[in-house]
């Protein structure tokens, strides 16, 4: 007879069976048997104790985004579980594969308002790919296998396992389980017959094609396939925020970032192109601006693995369903070699305008306080444009996305869809565990830095080599910018009193430096990058700096404001 083990021990073995090596978590009453089992697996499962469960989810996201593996969280029931909701929602809208395992009261006590009981499955159904309650130890192996299969296959996303306490302590005959088929869910759908040919015909006839590169290219590992297609047919590209590193910034066909604070040329050209080829992106309103005036002149080809994205926001002429690694490759075989020299050259005049009126004054100022873009570009240059960029949300995010350069795949980790302040610091912790071989630089504002500031404790304990750049402007800058532009400069609760961050860094024993002077900036950055382990660089930047250009909300993509 096989040796019986507890459900909690079965969970450990199931995680190991899935190849998990790292998890982020926080113990508590209803998950104690599982943490007890974890104690016996410390040599194979590296558990990172965070300081707040929200931090665990963002760390798992950062881990997943840079490594392509599934990020795992282990938390307790009730408040432990509800604290993960923001991260779960963030992972859902940004298609990030994470598995959140939460304790739950014993099945016999469900529905009794027991201590730390919350109906987690119901709460998380709308913000997960799958949410499931493990009520018996017999379920553990199967549920974990299904959770990982769903989290990483097809369009990735978060999965929640609600692990009842009785299932953790029950004894079970454990056998590793594998799930490779779910009849109601096809993670690898095929394009409709003829759709690739239709797409190729449109591209072959196009005079003014434009490709929109989304995160789907990174998720599908299709960076090389994308490059092959755009080089063969000579297709200029714009990247979404999450797709920025899918195509190297210095590639001649990469024309920059799309969207509200993106680059001028790709936005303007969206409303001039004759064929728009959207790859693994979802036409978010921050990309499209006003839909009624968005790319109305163009035929639209949409390539995505999720059929519910087609025609959701933008009316599509040709739907190409499937993993873009396969569809891009097939499409590259069908298109003819072409040159669109005149069209591509026409981007340059917009680049020149943006360069002169926005970029140069932002990154190469000669007087006044430090600019945000200046700090970002200096960090990017000093790290040889090879670091992983993590951002918080707000002006720091837009400035970082705009002025960082990307030469390697999977190099941007940011909260795109949900726009979660406080995302940056824990996500950067996760990124250092996901890719210990790479430098991780996280840009934060003084608002977001304080929203998960407790994770400095995790950084201290783990000596996680997170290079934190705090761009301090004493404001909730993005909201202040909108107040300046759209609310008559009524700065309602955006000025903020700040603590002394150097003292905070000292309390956590994290090396730190404050820089206010332009002459010192480079040297300070080099000190940060060459110091082993974590570092906090506080850059005191211009208080009322603005992110430009900008398509005002509901505005038209080709009418970006260059000054405000």
């Amino acid at each position: 007879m096989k040796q019986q083990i507890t459900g909690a021990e079965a969970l450990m073995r199931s995680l190991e069976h899935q190849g998990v090596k790292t998890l982020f978590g926080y113990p508590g009453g209803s998950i104690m048997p599982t943490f007890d089992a974890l104690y016996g697996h410390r040599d194979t499962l590296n558990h990172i104790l965070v300081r707040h469960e929200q931090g665990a989810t963002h760390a798992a996201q950062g881990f997943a985004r840079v490594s392509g593996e599934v990020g795992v969280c282990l938390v307790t029931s009730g408040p432990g579980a509800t604290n993960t909701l923001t991260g779960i929602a963030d992972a859902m809208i940004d298609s990030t594969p994470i598995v959140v395992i939460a304790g739950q009261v014993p099945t016999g006590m469900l529905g009794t308002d027991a201590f730390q009981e919350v109906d987690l499955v119901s709460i998380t159904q709308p913000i997960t790919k799958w949410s499931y309650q493990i009520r018996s130890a017999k379920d553990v192996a199967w549920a974990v296998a299904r959770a990982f299969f769903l989290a990483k296959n097809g369009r990735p996303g978060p999965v929640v396992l609600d692990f009842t306490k009785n299932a953790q302590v029950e004894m079970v005959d454990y056998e590793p389980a594998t799930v490779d088929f779910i009849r109601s869910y096809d993670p690898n759908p095929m394009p409709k017959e003829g759709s690739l040919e239709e797409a190729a015909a449109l591209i072959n006839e196009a005079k003014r094609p434009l490709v929109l590169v989304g995160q789907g290219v990174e998720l599908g590992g299709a960076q090389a396939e994308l490059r092959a297609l755009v080089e063969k047919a000579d297709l200029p590209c714009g990247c979404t925020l999450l797709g920025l590193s899918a195509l190297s910034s210095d590639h001649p066909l990469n024309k920059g970032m799309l969207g509200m604070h993106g680059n001028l040329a790709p936005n303007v050209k969206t409303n001039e192109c004759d064929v728009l080829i959207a790859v693994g992106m979802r036409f978010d309103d921050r990309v499209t601006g006003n839909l009624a005036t968005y790319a109305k002149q163009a035929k639209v080809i949409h390539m995505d693995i999720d059929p519910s994205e087609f025609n959701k926001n933008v009316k599509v002429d040709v739907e190409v369903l499937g993993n873009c690694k396969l569809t891009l490759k097939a499409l590259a075989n069908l298109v003819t070699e072409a040159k669109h020299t005149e069209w591509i050259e026409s981007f340059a005049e917009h680049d020149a305008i943006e360069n002169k009126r926005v970029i140069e004054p932002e990154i190469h100022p000669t007087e006044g306080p430090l600019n945000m873009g200046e700090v970002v570009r200096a960090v990017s240059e000093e790290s040889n444009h090879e670091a992983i960029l993590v951002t918080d949300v707000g002006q720091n995010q837009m400035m970082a996305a705009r002025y960082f350069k990307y030469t390697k795949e999977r190099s941007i980790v940011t909260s795109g869809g949900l726009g979660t302040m406080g995302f940056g610091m824990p996500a950067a912790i996760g990124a250092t565990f996901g890719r210990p071989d790479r430098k991780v630089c996280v840009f934060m504002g003084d608002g977001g830095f304080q929203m998960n500031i407790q994770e400095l404790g995790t950084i201290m304990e783990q000596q996680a080599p997170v290079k934190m750049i705090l761009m301090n402007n004493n404001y909730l800058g993005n909201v202040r910018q909108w107040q300046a532009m759209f609310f008559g400069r009524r700065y309602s609760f955006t000025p903020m009193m700040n603590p002394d961050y150097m003292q905070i860094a000292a309390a956590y024993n994290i090396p730190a430096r404050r820089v206010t002077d332009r002459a010192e900036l480079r040297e300070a950055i080099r000190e940060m990058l060459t110091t082993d382990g974590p570092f906090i660089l506080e850059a005191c930047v211009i208080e009322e700096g603005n992110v430009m250009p900008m398509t005002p909300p509901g505005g038209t993509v080709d009418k970006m404001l260059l000054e405000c």
Partner: protein
Amino acid sequence: MIKENKKTGHAKQVLPHREDLGGSMKTLYTLIVHSENIAGLLNQVTAVFTRRQINIESLNVSASSIKGIHKYTITAWCTEDEIKKVVKQIERKIDVLQANYFTDDEIYQHEIALYKLATPGFQANPVASKIIRRHAARVVEVNPTFCIVEKNGMSEEITSLYEELQQFGIVLQFVRSGRVAISTSCFERLNEYLNFREEKYNKEKEYARQ
């Protein structure tokens, strides 16, 4: 019986304007959804309507002819653009096998209704029993206090019988089921889907083995 009359006090109800990709005409659509029989799935299906603030007119869930698969028949008033998106969002749920929407001319649909009538009032109005016969309804229970009439048919027929009986003021209770519907197409989409999934899985496995 006093008919409940909700007086809002507003002379005119103002409906929110919505910008649509497609037509803005509202139609009564019937959705047929097949899913695995898993706890909590109904919640996920109805949540798709809630998120878009679309009212469900009727809802019927029961076991389908295939073991372990449940069938939902849902009706809702909305535009074609809305129903298309609703169907896609429902299909996106992992354990939903298939969702399709239909207009009334693409389905054979039926409802069942029960009418509880006051026996004295019923007896005092001989026309009432003629009406019941004309509607091909049947009396399933009679006692001195009340009788119960059962009718199945299309939605409008059920409403019309109610209205005709109600003019005598004899209806004590009235209940109608959700709509059940069968598509009139020659293709059995669910069977096709299940076969397709199985074949594809086998092919992928074969491919992986090579």
